[in-house]
């Protein structure tokens, strides 16, 4: 069995503006290896994946592929020629095409007469090999398949025969919608694939699965690989410890017991919050926290009289998708939610609006000389301050925050923490989803989400990184 590395990352760095997503990673994957890549939110997993599959070009350092003929090359085309395939977490199938037709998009040699038949043979062979007894018809339209079946198809395409055979397959949370039995089929197949000379990068929040399939586990933390050992040298608890931050936990301020009042909300998922309480939502990104918040906000704000006197307001973290009005001034962005209470005969009281803007510019410390400047002239952190101001300027008592500190500098964060605490003292309730454990640890109560449901509710001294990580990852041993 050849042991020369299929892909080598040497001192790879990836910077997005001032954010260092990857900060000097050395990683080499040889045939026969299955590397479990483990890390908490924002550790750099997806950036690493995109560097390896050629989707991104490293800011600094090299990504080198070994082609089937033994030569080495760099670049996106080389990644394809080297047989690097990725199965993404967000589905990249075309729902309007059949399973076999979807093969046409990544595989360029499927042309001419009989292309459909060849595609069918390839995908059916891959499906049969990876998921024996799958029951998926290659002629079925992908949109008609269940989520699990789509994920199976996607994985099968990753392993299928093609113009260049698959040599390194990157699986990013491949089992997120598969049940244990089918996930077991996958891990079996991956083991066989690697034994036959292939290589796999396996990313999953199910630690049992990773232990089951990986030959080596690399731990990513803050854009660096901090630990890399053969799988037998780790224990599940040891891995959780390795992922956590060594230095953390600013002294938590003792909560004033009088601050917290009666219950003001409960949801179907089991979220609840009391007046004046800071309630944190945690867990790995994409496990249903944001969806739960959006559902709650939309339901609670739909009733009568909610426009002028809302019960609830929203602070977006994904500023482009959920928050910023890109064509507007800072002032208009700030006043949007509160504006309905500042009208006369339907006309905006512009004097009152200006006063509100000036007030919140001071309170949030928005750095601009004129609130009339476009919102996009602000830095990300200051845009986020404006979104905080938009929500807090309303009369709503419940503030829903969807990971609001994403990409915000430390100074702004400290200002925002102080502001949140002060508002809570005044009786406002905060529902705070954050991908950063440190932030969640500031809360009075924390709900940890896994697979769309609450997996733990922590209070008091139980709120710490250890417990949150433990509840975020599936710990039970995976047998197949």
């Amino acid at each position, binding site marked *: 069995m050849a042991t020369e590395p299929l892909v080598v990352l040497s001192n790879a760095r990836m910077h997005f503006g001032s954010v260092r997503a990857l900060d000097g990673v050395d990683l080499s994957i040889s045939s026969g290896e299955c590397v479990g890549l483990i890390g908490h939110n924002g550790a750099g997993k997806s950036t690493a994946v995109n560097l390896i599959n050629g989707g991104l070009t490293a800011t600094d350092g090299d990504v080198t592929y070994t082609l089937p003929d033994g030569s080495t090359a760099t670049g996106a085309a080389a990644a394809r020629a080297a047989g690097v395939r990725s199965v993404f977490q967000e589905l990249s199938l075309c729902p309007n095409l059949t399973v076999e037709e979807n093969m046409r998009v990544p595989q360029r040699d499927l042309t001419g007469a009989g292309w459909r038949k060849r595609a069918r043979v390839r995908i059916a062979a891959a499906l049969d090999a990876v998921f024996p007894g799958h029951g998926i018809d290659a002629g079925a339209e992908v949109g008609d398949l269940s989520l699990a079946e789509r994920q199976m198809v996607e994985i099968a395409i990753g392993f299928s025969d093609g113009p260049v055979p698959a040599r390194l397959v990157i699986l990013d949370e491949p089992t997120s919608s598969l049940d244990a039995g089918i996930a077991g089929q996958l891990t079996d197949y991956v083991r066989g694939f690697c034994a036959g000379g292939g290589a796999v990068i396996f990313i999953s929040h199910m630690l049992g699965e990773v232990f089951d399939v990986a030959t080596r586990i690399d731990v990513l933390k803050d854009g660096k690989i901090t630990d890399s050992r053969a799988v037998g040298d780790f224990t599940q608890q040891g891995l959780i410890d390795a992922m956590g931050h060594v230095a953390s936990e600013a002294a938590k301020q003792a909560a004033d017991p009088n601050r917290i009042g009666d219950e003001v909300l409960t949801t179907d998922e089991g979220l609840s919050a009391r007046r004046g309480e800071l309630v944190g939502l945690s867990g790995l990104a994409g496990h249903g926290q944001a969806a739960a918040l959006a559902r709650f906000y939309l339901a609670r704000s739909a009733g009568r009289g*909610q426009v002028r006197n*809302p019960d609830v*307001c929203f602070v977006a973290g994904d500023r482009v998708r*959920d928050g*910023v*009005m*890109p064509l507007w001034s800072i002032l208009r962005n700030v006043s949007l*939610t509160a504006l309905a209470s500042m009208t006369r005969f339907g*006309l*905006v009281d512009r004097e009152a609006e200006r006063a509100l803007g000036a007030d919140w510019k001071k309170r949030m410390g928005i750095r601009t000389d004129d609130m009339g400047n476009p919102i996009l002239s602000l830095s990300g952190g200051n845009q986020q301050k404006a979104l905080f101001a938009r929500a807090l300027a309303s009369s709503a008592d419940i503030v829903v925050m969807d990971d609001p500190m994403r990409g915000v500098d430390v100074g702004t964060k400290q200002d925002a923490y102080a502001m949140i605490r002060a508002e809570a003292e005044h009786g406002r309730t905060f529902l705070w989803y954050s991908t950063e454990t440190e932030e969640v640890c500031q809360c009075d109560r924390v709900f940890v989400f896994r697979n769309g449901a609450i997996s733990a509710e922590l209070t008091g001294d139980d709120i710490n990184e250890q417990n949150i990580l433990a509840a975020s990852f599936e710990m039970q041993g995976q047998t197949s």
Partner: protein
Amino acid sequence: MTIWKAPWFWSWAAGALAFAATLLLTDGRNGGDLLSAALTFASFSAIVGIGQMFVITLGPGNVDLSIPASMTLAGTLSLKFMGGDAALIVPGLMVALGVGFGAGVFNYLLIRLLRIPPIIATLSASFIFQSIAIWSNRGLRIKPPQSLSDFTTGATLGVPNLALVALVLAVIAWVILDRSIFGRWLSAFGQNERAARLSGVPIEGVRALTYIGCATLAGLTGFLLASFSGGAALNMGTEYLLVSIAVVVIGGSSIAGGNSNVPGIWGGALFMFLIVSMLNSYGLGAGVRLIVTGGIIIGIVAAASKKGARA
């Protein structure tokens, strides 16, 4: 802000240029007549254009394709209702506005209940409106009451009455767009519907009022146009589908939504008329005129996209 940076500036400049070029040929004679004709005919485009502008402000995919049918239906039914009787002018106007209002409600309900894109909803609705108009019209051409006819073709202090009506509407539209809470919500909706909803904007109410308002303005235009031209004709609305969208684009409103302006609608409407008279007076026919108009529309969106290209 310097004036040429205003989004509507170029439509006015182009209109003025076309006006000047026409006068050049006639050595400045008939300038008054040309202006008066331009104001009159631009009024119709301006009123439907204002309605279409509100709809387009809602963002991609929002456009009212039923404007011509609503116009025809309102014009036909209201003239039939009045039957030439001057005493019924005000109720007749109410009929026209009511027809437009009803058409808007119908459009909105299709969008809301069938969850279909506005283009298809207003398209299907337009088929039905058009059919009702054909059925009720039956090829008869009922004349408008004389006094109404006189009003629509007349002028006050040298300004065509129709232009005055359209100007008043434009001022009202400007106040709504730039000064009212509704205008803010509309702009927020068009920039980012999801973010607007998450900021507490009542988006369904905004959408409903916008479509209803647009159809009501179309109804009013149908009433005025039928009165002006001595009776309703079944094809009287046809050209206003393209014109209503064109004046919005030429007027510098963003086709991507969220950013519109009223002065540009007038600029675009005047330009659309003046370019015709300019090309006519230079002996160029309808063909060239259409090609130039199309070229201008495409040129404007292509040029605007460079500025708007972000991320």
